[in-house]
């Protein structure tokens, strides 16, 4: 296991480096921020001066060289927009999103596994049909639509919850509530499907023949095998929140990394884009590592390759 983690960390580090290089060049294909940053009326000289000052006038490869040297000194550059270190900006935003993702996924997993298992117990039954239809309808509703309607109904008309922002635990209810819907619908389906397969497979039948009580069959034997695809899909969804809860963060004025990312992308604030991607990528790589370890723990037959 130790050997596995060591190897994996090395290959992950190489992949991270590749990602950073990819982002550096691809982001710069979308134009430089000069025209965006300067007032429209700025003269050609002012623009040239700005490019010079921030090094956008140099050949791309030279800019990249500077970037590499800086990164090796753990300097991720300065945000042009915010005139402060990019990493500082990112580390301010990241914990918000991390908490949002953790809270959302915890609730989703508990709900989806519980309801999915019950549904799989009798496929095609009333509970199965009902839970499927409701969760699917929710999961296919556009999140910004749900979010705005949620604010209009729960905050303005009923006055139960704050509209937006952060501060009290109540402020988390709407954003988390909106974020839950989609992964819940998706993971519920995966749990259900995997459980139906697992329940009809040979080893569950064997377990039943041995006389283990039915509830134990479902929750130990079947669930254990059904967990593989569930964890994979949950990881995908968690990654989606980590680098993409943009809509929810935008609407609720939630100061997370998604909002920071979209703003930086639209403003071509390259240093922030790079730092943000690096931080979220590390988080996602770590999560995928944990998932692979979980595979091995769930199913000891799986070798680490």
């Amino acid at each position, binding site marked *: 296991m130790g050997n596995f983690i060591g190897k994996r960390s090395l*290959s992950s580090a190489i992949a991270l480096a590749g990602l950073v290089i990819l982002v550096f060049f*691809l982001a710069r294909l*979308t134009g430089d921020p000069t025209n965006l940053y300067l007032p429209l009326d700025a003269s050609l000289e002012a623009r040239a001066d700005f490019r010079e000052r921030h090094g956008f006038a140099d050949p791309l490869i030279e800019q990249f060289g500077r970037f590499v040297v800086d990164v090796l000194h753990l300097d991720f550059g300065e945000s042009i927009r915010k005139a402060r270190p990019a990493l500082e900006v990112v580390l301010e935003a990241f914990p918000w999103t991390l908490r949002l993702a953790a809270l959302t996924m915890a609730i989703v997993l508990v709900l989806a596994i519980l309801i999915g298992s019950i549904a799989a117990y009798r*496929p095609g039954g009333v509970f199965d049909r009902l839970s499927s239809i409701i969760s699917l309808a929710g999961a296919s*509703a*556009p*999140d*910004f639509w749900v979010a705005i309607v949620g604010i209009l109904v729960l905050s303005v008309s009923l006055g139960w919850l704050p509209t937006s922002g952060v501060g009290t635990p109540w402020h988390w209810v709407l954003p988390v509530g909106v974020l839950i819907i989609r992964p819940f619908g998706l993971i519920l389906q995966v749990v259900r499907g995997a459980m139906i397969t697992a329940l009809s497979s040979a080893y569950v039948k064997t377990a039943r023949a041995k006389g283990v009580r039915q509830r134990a069959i479902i929750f130990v034997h079947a669930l254990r095998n059904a967990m593989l*695809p569930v964890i994979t899909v949950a990881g995908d969804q968690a990654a989606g929140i980590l680098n993409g809860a943009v809509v929810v963060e935008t609407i609720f004025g939630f100061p997370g990394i998604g909002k920071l990312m979209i703003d930086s992308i639209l403003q071509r604030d390259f240093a922030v*884009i790079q730092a943000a991607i690096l931080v979220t990528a590390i988080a996602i790589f770590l999560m995928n590592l944990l998932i692979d370890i979980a595979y091995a723990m769930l199913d000891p037959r799986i070798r680490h390759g």
Partner: protein
Amino acid sequence: MTGATTRPLAAPDAALPPVVNPWLAALRLLLADKLALVAAGFLLLMALCAIFGPALLGQPANAMNLRMRNAPPFDLENGWLFILGADALGRSILARIVVASQNTLSVAAASVASAMVVGCLLGLIAGYLGGWLGGLIMRLADVIMSFPSLLLAVIVLYMLEPRVANLVLVLAITRIPIYLRTTRAEVLEIRERMFVQAARVMGASSPRIIVRHILPIVVPTLITIGTLDFAFVMLAESALSFLGIGIQPPEITWGLMVAQGRGYLSQAWWLAFWPGVAIILTTMSLNLLSAWLRTATDPMQRWRLEQGGRRPEWRSGG
């Protein structure tokens, strides 16, 4: 998907019942599940809309009439085209939904299909062969997963044009990892199962093992995810429009219609509501149908359809 209906995928440890005409059998199984039947009907209707809609209703979908701005739904005075109301430029919402189905469904279908094929292939390689190539593929998946789809969208749509084909490219790339990781995870597990080991011992070639033994188990899972992803892709496309980096007018998609209508939620809910309903109904139909397909093609489960789903066999024995 239709290929799968006509030639049921066989689980290796179950014998196929004799099938006279696979199409007829499929139809019989479909008739047994009313909900799936409705879903299939709806999808057929949507497919017809997507094929013939733009030709039939393209003109009314783009005819501006500012006096009809935000005209409410269920008012037949203005003709049946306005049964769902009119949008902010006084265009028939019904006509626009029908016309937009072409873009919407082709973007979603093309994105999901290409992501599924590419992801499944790479996942098979990574899972079955493993080794350095497998590791490389998995790290590639990590890179794609950590590469924000928004940035990808901005890059592609800035460098190329914000056209439908380029949007498919963006959405397909971002969806590859889920298929890749799912396939690999399943392959890792199946590879160790008794029958695969047995086949290997008996000298079956790797491609044969993959096609005969592994794919039949992997594909149903992928299809489940794929039908769910269909919704995800439609919504992702909508979110991109919301953020101002997706498809833009004069092109129309359901997602764009919802994004444009959101500003009017408090006065004219129908602008965003009907295209949202179209997305929801399509997704649900696809999922109902895929659940049916999963059951119908699984010999262990097919009895549920054949016997009306009333006899949970394995429980009655206990």
